[in-house]
């Protein structure tokens, strides 16, 4: 079996979703940890140092390319799977749907939740990443004061609401995705699956809450 055959079958495509999904989860851990520096409440000194390390040193910038590739792969593969799955379903729908009796709504809504995350990503990248990188000439140039940018961006209630809503979508995407990814990659021991499901729920709540609290903290003036 060639690599191509292996990763283009229905199971192979899911392997890619699982790998890239877990990779994005690792990214989220790094991202949330570094951003948590805002709560040092030191006027952004510590946060900007962290941001400077991520933006102006070579290794993180190379990893950043990997991150973009991973995200694009996850999104493209996700939409391809969704469209194939819809085709497999056929044209005539059930008059009475099985719905929540057989599965959780968010497990059936991964593409919808993913789409909300994607739209958010576009907004989010144009808030911070793009202005900063273009200021740097997309190389390792001088950065803008990201802490200051955050303060300005998060003074708008609508922006804060969009961020909070997106964090909720991310939370539900992960509430299913976290444990699903391990199943997809072949973890079939019930002992581990039960544990991973619980860890997944905790992780989704902690991650989405932590991210949501960032704009809220700025808006409510908890940090200066």
């Amino acid at each position: 079996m060639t690599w191509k055959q292996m990763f283009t079958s229905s199971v192979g495509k899911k392997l890619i979703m699982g790998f890239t999904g877990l990779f994005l989860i690792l990214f989220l851990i790094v991202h949330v940890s570094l951003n948590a520096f805002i709560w040092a409440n030191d006027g952004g000194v510590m946060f900007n140092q962290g941001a400077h390390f991520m933006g102006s040193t070579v290794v993180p910038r190379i990893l950043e390319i990997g991150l973009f590739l991973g995200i694009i792969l996850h999104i493209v593969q996700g939409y391809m799977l969704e469209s194939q799955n819809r085709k497999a379903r056929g044209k005539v729908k059930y008059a009475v749907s099985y719905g929540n009796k057989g599965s959780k709504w968010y497990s059936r809504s991964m593409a919808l939740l993913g789409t909300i995350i994607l739209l958010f990503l576009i907004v989010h990248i144009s808030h911070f990443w793009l202005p900063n990188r273009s200021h740097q000439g997309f190389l390792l140039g001088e950065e803008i004061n990201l802490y200051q940018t955050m303060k300005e961006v998060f003074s708008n209630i609508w922006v804060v609401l969009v961020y909070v809503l997106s964090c909720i979508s991310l939370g539900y995407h992960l509430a299913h995705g976290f444990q699903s990814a391990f199943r997809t990659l072949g973890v079939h021991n019930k002992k581990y699956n039960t544990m991973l499901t619980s860890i997944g729920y905790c992780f989704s709540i902690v991650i989405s809450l932590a991210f949501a609290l960032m704009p809220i903290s700025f808006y409510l003036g908890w940090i200066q």
Partner: protein
Amino acid sequence: MEHYNMNLNLKVWRQKNSKTKGEFKMYRVENISSEMSFLEMFDVLNERLIEEGDDPIAFDHDCREGICGMCSMYIDGKPHGPWQGNTTCQLHMRAFKDGDTIVVEPWRANSFPVIKDLVVDRTAFDRIIQAGGYISVNTGNAVDGNALPINKNMADASFAAAMCIGCGACVAACKNSSAMLFLSAKVSHLALLPQGEPERKSRVLDMVAQMDKEGFGSCTNTGACEATCPKEISISYIAKLNNEYLCAGLTTE
């Protein structure tokens, strides 16, 4: 439980053949005993339809004891009806009350086209089995039954997978029309036994390839299949299948 009789309204999918468009028709059935099976209730209705010169409702059935997997009916929003771990033929009318309206639909999936009314074409499953759901045994003298030592837990897990009757309810319940619960049961059943070892890698790869060729969707791990399976096949067999696929894919030429 008390025996009782009931009158029911049935909303049943009628479709002449795979080419025509189908539609729901309402039927009234009276004096149905709570001790009848769901299929017997359909028999009563069909006899009446024949007497009245109407076309009886086509539905699949064979054993009527929950082992053949033929009785494919999607009843009130769930394959095989409201009971857990149960087939349509073993669903009894005491699951319903007087005056109920019951909606009966065929399995809906592109790979299971409707042949007539509630009968769908499930030969795609046969072709998936043919692609790898077998073991090769050389003919000759019969081997002593206990010659191959098998771990009891493995034998039990294999048997639990072998319970799959190929009914297709998992496909019918899945939002992706994925056949992964069925496939995972068939692959795991043999992968867990020493007799399945020689074809272990080619089996999973060939059966997945055939499943894709038949046009079934992929698995999102929603769990609707497990919740509806009359034989209560566990969704962890799907993870087992993924594991088999990954190992086979990485180690074959």
